[in-house]
C-alpha cells in the first residue's frame, strides 16, 4: 500500500464537497424540527431536488438556475407533507416515510432520459489573492458558491434561532404549540414556512450531489444521505454548529476511507465503508451527552379547535 498517494490538500478540499449535501439537508431539517415537526421525507425531497436541478441545468445550460429549481422542487414536494400533516393532521412519521418513497419513485421516472448525460459545470469562485495562496488557497478559497452558501446558511440559521424574535417564536412553537397558540402566534403558518424551508434546503442538497459532487444522474443516487442528515440533527442536539461539525466529520471520514481503499490498506473494504457512519455517530453521541433535549412538541399534532 502507498499512503503517500493521498494528497492532504485534495483530501480536505474534497471532504468539504462531500459534507455539503448533508449539511444543507441537515440545516433545513433542523429548522423544521425546531418548529416541532418531524419530517422523515428528507431523502425523498433531496432526490427530487437532485433530478429537478440536474434536468434544469442540462436543458438550460445554467447550473445556477438548476439549484434554484432544485430548491423550488424540494419545497414543492414538502407541500405534500404540509397538506398531510398540517391540513388533514395525518401522522408525521408515516407521512414522512411516504414522502421519501414517493420522491424516490418520482425521481426515477423523471430521470429516465438523463442517465449518462453530463451536466454543465459550475464555475468555481476565484478570489484574486486568496485562491492563489499555497495550501490554504485550494482548500478554503477555490470552491463552488453553493458550498460557501451552505456554511453561510448554517451561520445565519444559528444566529436567527438564537438572537432574533423570529427564531424565538419558532422555538416557542416547537416547545409548546398550545401555549404559542394561546399567545396568538400562528402555529400552523409558522410550521408550514419551516417545512418549506426544510424542503428547499433538502432540494439544494440533492442538486449538489447530482451537479457537483458526482456529477451525473443515476437512480437513487442520494443513497441514504437524507437519512444521515436526519440522524445528524438529533445527534447534533438541534444545534447548527454541531450539525456543521458532524457533516464535515462524516464527509471527512467518507473521503478518507475512499482514499484508504484506493491506497490498498489491508482492512476489509466493508469495515472501511461502514467507518463514516460509526465514527460520526460515536462522536456525536459523546457530544450530545449534555442536557440539551428535543423540542418538546416534536412530532406532536397540533389541533387548534379547543
Amino acid at each position, binding site marked *: 500500500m502507498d499512503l503517500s498517494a493521498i494528497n492532504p490538500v485534495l483530501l480536505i478540499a474534497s471532504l468539504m464537497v462531500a459534507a455539503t449535501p448533508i449539511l444543507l439537508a441537515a440545516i433545513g431539517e433542523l429548522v423544521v424540527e425546531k418548529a416541532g415537526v418531524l419530517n422523515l421525507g428528507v431523502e425523498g425531497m433531496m432526490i427530487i431536488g437532485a433530478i429537478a436541478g440536474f434536468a434544469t441545468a442540462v436543458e438550460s445550460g445554467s447550473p445556477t438556475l438548476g439549484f434554484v429549481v432544485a430548491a423550488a422542487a424540494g419545497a414543492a414536494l414538502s407541500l405534500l407533507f404540509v397538506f398531510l400533516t398540517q391540513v388533514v393532521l395525518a401522522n408525521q412519521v408515516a407521512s414522512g416515510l411516504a414522502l421519501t418513497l414517493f420522491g424516490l419513485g418520482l425521481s426515477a421516472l423523471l430521470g429516465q432520459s438523463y442517465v449518462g448525460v453530463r451536466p454543465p459545470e459550475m464555475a468555481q469562485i476565484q478570489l484574486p489573492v486568496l485562491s492563489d495562496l499555497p495550501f490554504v488557497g485550494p482548500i478554503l478559497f477555490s470552491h463552488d458558491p453553493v458550498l460557501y452558501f451552505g456554511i453561510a446558511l448554517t451561520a445565519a440559521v444559528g444566529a436567527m434561532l438564537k438572537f432574533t*424574535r423570529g427564531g424565538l417564536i419558532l422555538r*416557542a412553537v416547537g*416547545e409548546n404549540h398550545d*401555549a404559542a397558540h394561546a*399567545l396568538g*402566534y400562528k402555529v400552523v403558518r409558522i410550521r408550514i414556512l419551516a417545512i418549506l424551508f426544510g424542503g428547499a434546503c433538502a432540494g439544494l442538497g440533492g442538486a449538489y450531489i447530482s451537479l457537483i459532487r458526482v456529477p451525473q444522474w443515476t437512480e437513487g443516487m442520494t443513497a441514504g444521505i437524507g437519512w444521515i442528515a436526519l440522524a445528524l440533527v438529533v445527534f447534533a442536539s438541534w444545534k447548527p454548529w454541531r450539525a456543521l461539525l458532524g457533516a464535515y466529520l462524516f464527509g471527512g471520514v467518507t473521503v478518507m476511507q475512499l482514499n484508504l481503499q484506493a491506497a490498498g490498506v489491508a482492512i476489509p473494504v466493508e469495515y472501511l465503508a461502514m467507518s463514516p457512519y460509526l465514527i460520526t455517530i460515536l462522536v456525536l453521541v459523546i457530544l450530545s451527552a449534555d442536557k440539551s433535549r428535543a*423540542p418538546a412538541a416534536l412530532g406532536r399534532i397540533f389541533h387548534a379547535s379547543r
Partner: protein
Amino acid sequence: MTEPLLSLTGVTKAYPGVVANDKVSLVIQPGEVHALLGENGAGKSTLVKMIYGLVKPDSGDIRLNGAPFKPAEPRQARADGIAMVFQHFSLFDALSVAENIALGMENPPKMRDLAKRIRSVSETYGLPLDPARTVGDLSAGERQRVEIIRCLLQEPKLLIMDEPTSVLTPQEVEILFETLRKLRSEGTSILYISHKLEEIRALCDASTILRLGKNVGSCIPAETSARDMAELMVGSALKTPERRTRDFGPEALRVHNLSAAAPAEFGTALKNIQFSLRKGEILGIGGVAGNGQDELLAVLSGEMTTDPNSVQLDGAPIGDLGPTKRRALAVLSAPEERLGHAAAPDMSLTENAMLTGAVRENLAAGGFLKWSAARGFAERVIKEFDVRTPGTENTARSLSGGNLQKFVIGREVLQRPEILVVNQPTWGVDAAAAAAIRQALLDLAAEGTAILCISQDLDELMEISDAFAALNEGRLSAPRPTAGLDVEEIGLMMGGSHGMDVAHV
C-alpha cells in the same frame, strides 16, 4: 354612574351539541375586582376566551369603554389593554424567564433592557423573579409570577385570572392578593375566576355567577356567605361530606427512612421520609406541587421501587415490589394526571377498568381477558360513582375531567383496597363531584381502609383527613392531628413561601 370598562350583553356561543354561553351578560367597572363563578362546564372559560379574542361569539354585544369590541385575535385584545393569566400555564419550559415574557409582548425591548424591566416590575409588585432562569426549573408559584409579570409589562386595563390560586401555598396566595390589591388601587380592573369561595369573599368587589352557560345571579361577595354562593353555582342545596367518628385499627402501612433519587430531569428526590398509617386513618399530605408529590405516589404504588424495608405493609417489606404485586396485596393508587397516567386516554372505559382491576377483580385468566367481567366492573363503577357517560365503550378522553376523575377514583375504591393512595383526587372537579369523591374516601376509611391523600387543596385536606403532613423539597414534615391545626401553622409546615415574606408594597 361611571361608564363601565367592559360590558357584555346577551353573548352567545354554541359548539356542536352544546351551548357554552347562552345570552350571558357581565359588567366590569374600572378599578374593580370582579369574580366569575361557576362549576366546571358552566362556560367561564369560553366567556373569557371571547373577551381575550381566542374564541369569537356567535351573537351578542361586547363593549370596551363604551365602544364596540370584537377582538379577532389575542394580539388585538392585548393591544386594547386586556391581559390574561391562564389556568394551565402557557409557558415554555426550555426557554428562560425573559424569553417567555418576550413572547407575550408585542414589541419587546432588547433582552438586556427587558431583564431590567422585569426586575423593576417584580420589585414594585413584590414578585421576586430572576429573568435568566429556565422556566422548567421554577416552582408553580414562580411560574405564575412569570405570567403575571408578562401581563403587567403590558400595563393592562383589565387583567383576567383563570383559577390563579389552585397551585399556591397560603403565603403565596397572600402575596398574590397584595399584588392584586395594589393593581386595583392603581385603577386596573381584574376579572377573577375561581371556585374557592372564601378567597372571592376576601378579594372581590362584585361577582357574576354562571350555571350551564347562563347567568344565574350576581352578588356582592363580602356580603354573601360562601354557602349561598355555592348553592347558586350548583343550583341545589349542597351536601357537605359527613365524617363519622371512628376508631383506628392497628398500623397498616409504615414508611421508614425512605429516600429515592429524582426519576426525571425536573423531578424531586425524596429524602428520608417517615410516617405510619393505621387502618381507617386518612393522612393528608399538603405542599406545593413539584415538591415530591408525584414521586411519593410512585414509590407507594410501586412505579418506583426502593429498599424493601422502606415500605412495609402490616410489617412485611414491600418496597421492592412492582405495581401489580402491590395491587395483589391490596395496595392501590390513583395518580394525579387523569389522562395518560391514571387512565389511557384513547382506550374505552372497559379497557381502563381492566388495566388496574385485572388482578383484584379477576378480569383475566391464563393470559386471556374476560371482557364481560371487565364490562360488568366498569358498569359498576359508572353506576356507583354517578359517572355521566353514554356507556362503557366510550373512550376515557371523551369524559369531562370531573366524570373521569369519579371513574378513576371509583375504580380503585370498588377494588376494596387495604391501602389507597390518591394524588389530587378532586383537581379541577366541580363542587358537587368533589363532595361525592370526598364522601367516598371517608366511607372507605370508615370500613377500615388506610388512605393517603396527597392534595394541593388545603380545605379538602382539612375536611377529610385525620392527620396532616407537608412535603417540601422532597422532605415530609412530622404528621400532626388535623383537629386544632390552623392555616398559619399549615403554611409554615409547607415551607412557607420559600423563605420569602409578603413584600411591602
